């Protein structure tokens, strides 16, 4: 990987024309991939057939699937300045590159002898010292794209820089977790996102797995009343009578409202969250839902303002301070009364890119390359992963090469935190990324130990030439999906997608019945919250 040795025209606000060009670049991509094409509104799960609204036994059994670990994604919107987030203490290059922006050592709290964070973030110090915080240096991807939108898409989809992928990494993961999402949607939203419109992260090929609520205010309306649209205050005029009818129907189409309201009522915030802090407001909601056992596996919250092209110093410190205060409050709340809940919730910050290592003429920084990620959670330990930016580049416009590919972080979290089978991780990520061993505690019991479903294996049928018998056993009734994939992991056929009773089951697979020719394939069994994947040869 080489330095990018030319200035990115337009990455700075100083140059209005070039900056406008930068935004033109945003439009070159399909803008709508950001918005999820079919319309990212507040009721994303409305795109479902009528059966989706009927409670079924399948839905009930799905709600309890998988392990009980939770992932909270914290998005820094706008491109976070890594160099002023994690400071390499005493690095003269840093102070030379940033004559006005560099934070002096006496304004830092020490992560170690070598690194520190701005004092505004000292709410994080106990998390660090108690082994609840990790830092991954200089995260990025090859051939960086300096458009906010495009880069966010790359980060959200897990794609290469040059590849447009219209599904998100979490969407693909959840598609595996909730195999029959469209046919038998779960009673809880698999993912819940508050306060941000862009949702590519959660989009899978078949459905948008996230419930997105546009604002905390809309969320409070749901949480407090169990409905998104108010029907109580309408009067008796013809228009109001019809509006009441439509609102009632919309509210009942909005299937998750009651589940959310119930969890929100059960869960309580047990500490005071900082006020005037948008991230804290969102995390307080998340904490209540987690404590109320909503059962949602993935949450996303976001905080904007990181596009610090001008007058950045105090503003950025304050912004990070808000992050720190919000995250600290969130974990204090989760661990309140020694609940142990903080052990089950992993927080992960991310941003679409970092910023230039040099400061610009407006006392700000422009779009750059790598940026740190932070992980939070009980029992994850503390420490650093990856290499800090090399600030010794002679080229003032060069961005130091990134150190950790964000996809290795995703893969590690999917595998170790969420307990996903390594093959499935590769399937979800579209490639076999290296794993960062020990980044987060491996899931225990690891996937498959629950034995709600056991893959008994496959063998050629003796009675029926050309048939391969695929056998599995269920210890609990539930949905089963059996699919044939090619060796690259693309789904070719769905053999079984139905609710099965307890007991042993055999599927007689004859490739010609499914118009598949001879060759190497894989089959994937999803049942009991587990996924099994095996190679087979069709002769």
């Amino acid at each position: 990987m080489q330095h990018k040795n030319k200035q990115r025209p337009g990455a700075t606000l100083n140059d209005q024309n070039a900056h406008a060009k930068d935004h033109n670049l945003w439009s070159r991509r399909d803008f709508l991939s950001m918005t999820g094409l079919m319309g990212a509104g507040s009721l994303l799960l409305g795109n479902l057939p009528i059966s989706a609204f009927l409670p079924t036994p399948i839905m009930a059994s799905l709600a309890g699937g998988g392990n009980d670990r939770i992932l909270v994604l914290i998005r820094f919107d706008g491109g976070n300045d890594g160099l002023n987030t994690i400071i390499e203490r005493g690095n003269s290059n840093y102070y030379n590159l940033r004559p006005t922006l560099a934070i002096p050592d006496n304004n830092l709290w020490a992560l170690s002898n070598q690194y520190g964070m701005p004092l505004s973030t000292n709410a994080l110090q106990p998390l660090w010292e108690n082994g609840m915080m990790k830092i991954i240096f200089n995260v990025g991807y090859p051939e960086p794209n300096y458009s906010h939108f495009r880069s966010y898409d790359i980060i959200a989809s897990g794609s290469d820089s040059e590849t447009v992928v219209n599904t998100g990494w979490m969407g693909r993961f959840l598609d595996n977790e909730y195999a029959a999402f469209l046919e038998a949607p779960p009673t809880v939203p698999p993912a819940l996102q508050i306060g941000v419109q862009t949702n590519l992260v959660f989009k899978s090929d078949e459905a948008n797995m996230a419930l997105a609520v546009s604002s905390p205010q809309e969320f409070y309306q749901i949480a407090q009343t169990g409905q998104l649209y108010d029907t109580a205050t309408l009067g008796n005029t013809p228009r109001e009578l019809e509006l009441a009818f439509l609102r009632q129907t919309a509210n009942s189409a909005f299937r998750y409202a009651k589940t959310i309201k119930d969890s929100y009522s059960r869960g309580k915030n047990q500490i005071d969250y900082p006020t005037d802090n948008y991230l804290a407001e969102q995390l307080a909601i998340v904490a209540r839902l987690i404590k109320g056992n909503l059962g949602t596996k993935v949450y996303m919250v976001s905080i904007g303002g990181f596009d610090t092209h001008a007058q950045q110093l105090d503003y950025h410190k304050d912004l990070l301070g808000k992050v720190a205060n919000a995250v600290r409050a969130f974990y204090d709340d989760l661990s309140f009364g020694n609940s142990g809940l903080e052990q089950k919730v992993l927080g992960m910050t991310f941003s679409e890119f970092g910023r230039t290592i040099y400061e610009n003429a407006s006392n700000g920084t422009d779009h750059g390359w790598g940026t740190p990620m932070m992980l939070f959670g009980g029992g994850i330990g503390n420490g650093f992963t990856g290499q800090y930016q090399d600030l010794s580049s002679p080229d003032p416009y060069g961005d130091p090469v990134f150190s950790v590919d964000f996809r290795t972080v995703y893969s590690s979290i999917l595998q170790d935190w969420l307990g996903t089978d390594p093959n499935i991780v590769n399937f979800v990520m579209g490639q076999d990324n290296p794993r960062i061993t020990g980044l987060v505690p491996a899931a225990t019991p690891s996937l498959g130990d629950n034995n709600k479903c056991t893959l008994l294996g496959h063998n050629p049928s003796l009675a029926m030439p050309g048939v391969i018998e695929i056998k599995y056993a269920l210890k609990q009734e539930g949905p089963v999906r059996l699919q044939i994939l090619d060796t690259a992991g693309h789904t070719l056929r769905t053999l079984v997608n139905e609710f099965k009773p307890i007991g042993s089951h055999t599927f007689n697979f004859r490739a010609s019945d499914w118009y598949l020719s001879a060759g190497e394939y894989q089959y994937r069994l999803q049942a009991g919250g587990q996924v099994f994947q095996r190679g087979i040869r069709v002769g």
Partner: protein
Amino acid sequence: MPEIGTIAEMPSAASPALIGNPLDPYVPTAAKPWNARRVAHVYRRLGFGASLAQIQEGLQMSPSDLIDHLLNPASDLGPPDPPYWAGYTNADYAADPNMVFTHRDQLRRQWLSNMLTEGIQAKMALFWHNHFVTAINTVGCNSYFWDYFSMIHEYSFGNFRLFAREMGKNPAMLVYLNGNLNVAGQPNENYARELMELFTMGESNGYTQADIVEMARALTGWQSKDYLCTPAYFDNTKHDNNAKTIFGQTANYSFTTAHNLIFSARSEQVSKFISGKIYKNFVYQAIDPTVVAGLADELKSNNWELLPTLKTLYKSEHFFDERIISARIKNPVETLIPILKMAGADTAGPLPDNWWDAIGYWTYLLGQEMFNPPNVAGWPGYHAWINESTLASRWNFSSVTSYFLTQNDTLKENLRSLAQALTNDSNDPGLITSALVDFFTGQTLEPIHLQSAIINFKAGIPENYYQDGTWNLYWNEAPYQIVNLLYYLVKLPEFQLT
């Protein structure tokens, strides 16, 4: 026999005593001003919405002039130009029977496209399609259905008495309600019954079973050979040439004189029934009896001419009543077509066939398959359009229709110009969102939903670009941001009202 239900009346709480005749011409006042909101109301109810240019044009006219401006050309338009296959018989399709379906698709596309470009006439024709119902899947012959399609346009604003009479001879109707099986000595009552029950008088409203049998005898003789798809014709040998007793009056009624009898002996019932249906379709589901009675009088005194009657309604104080505006539940085509119309797609040149095919398919999925109403009573409409499933599908299909706007450079620029014209080229996202919400929904949102609308309009562009004034409507993103806002708006319950 299909149920058409009872005619509900508007709840009395919603009908405060009106001073004067509610059908008196609307005179704008400070409390009831002639403004963009009421101009948009006219366009939405009479047609399929308006572009900003049309609203601005309307504002320059008096309410009465605007109604004339819209209805006169629509009523002069006449039937659409016949396609080359308008007279095709089965023999013409023998070489390539699949063309039957190709031509139906063409016609459906044409109609949906007319809703965009000739909205006022198409809306009226759609009303009559749902009144004098036939279904192309039952009729079978394309030429018959074309004949019918042409007729519902030709008479849209014409004379209802002649319309009802001619409809009975239409080959599509002869097939659909078995008029061609109704012959002397073997009367088939089907058409006679629906003529009275659904097309003119209303159920059990001034006729007996004996009247139906006798009416059927009078209507005998009109034939259509649907196995050939050749034109309809009158066969005097199949006409019952004996005396019939209808409504207690005995004569040797012919097809024409029997129809005349309905309109003379039962003018009260017919005028009220038709006026009620017009009211429900263009004003509100729960009828106002005073208004409907007044309309019925208009229809009679105008010798069943529809145009002056409709003008009286549309120019009335009642039609512009605050309580009526945005009180109708949209049918599926009213849900989708105005999204294009409000973006000025009617003047953007022909739109791709696959857009119309998609929209036609979606209205089918939403319960309104053009040319195939569910039965002779038509689409029941109103609340029957809406349940959890169809509502969620409306969100989806409305979103994709909004997405279409990004796929055409003219429409994209129209959106940008629209936002600029509405806000004097503001760069304040809150102000722009409010103006667009007002334009696209015609209604005021509650604060939390307006806030969400603004977030959707901002579309993830970092906040600092708004705060420091860098962002403006000239950005390439702006049209996409408006579409992103539409994605949110089309999911609001308010959006289903028109």
